[in-house]
């Protein structure tokens, strides 16, 4: 799986083109705030079964809190 770094404006452009947002933070953090339309699968729970919620035909933008 390759990873590529995107800026805020590029993220907005990708979302307009149909990309999915995946929030890998803990559920309580997600409940407090998240990017509009994001799906939450906490990193510890991310596997083939939980990832089945994602549309395999659309790009997936993964984010956590900040750098690191």
């Amino acid at each position, binding site marked *: 799986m390759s990873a590529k770094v995107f800026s805020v404006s590029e993220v907005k452009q990708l979302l307009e083109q149909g990309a999915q947002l995946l929030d890998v933070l803990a559920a309580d953090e997600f409940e407090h705030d998240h990017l509009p339309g994001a799906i939450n699968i906490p990193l510890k729970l991310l596997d083939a079964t939980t990832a089945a919620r994602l549309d395999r035909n659309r790009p997936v933008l*993964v984010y956590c809190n900040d750098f690191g």
Partner: protein
Amino acid sequence: MIDYVPGKTAWYEENQPREGKAVDEIWIGDVAGSEVPTCSLTETIGDIRRRTQGWDTCVVVDPRGVVLGLLRKKELESDANATAEQVMRPGPKTFRPNVTLQELLKSMRDHEIQTNSLVTTGEGRLLGVISRADAEATLIHENAAQGAG
């Protein structure tokens, strides 16, 4: 799979929308006024003063809108031939738009800030200003609305 490395903090620091319980919070990016006058480093105080009548604040920015300094009443009343760069208060304290109103007010009280606070993106680009009076009034109004609800 695309790794959005800057993460949600950078998203919020650009004053982008959010979902979740935090929608019910007041973040200062939601309430900061964007009408504050700005000027360049090379503009003279005389020109700025003519352009900003009625204001006691002018933010000195670079061509990208990044905050470089601040002119308050004292500087705006200084030598008309001086440039903004010569008299400005460099590197003013700024706040990110994802700071809550309560956090901003605490900081303003702790640092005895009575006037306008600048709200900028993570990269320092000016988004707007919020006065302590407006921040206090907004919070009182919000608390009253929650009490009534």
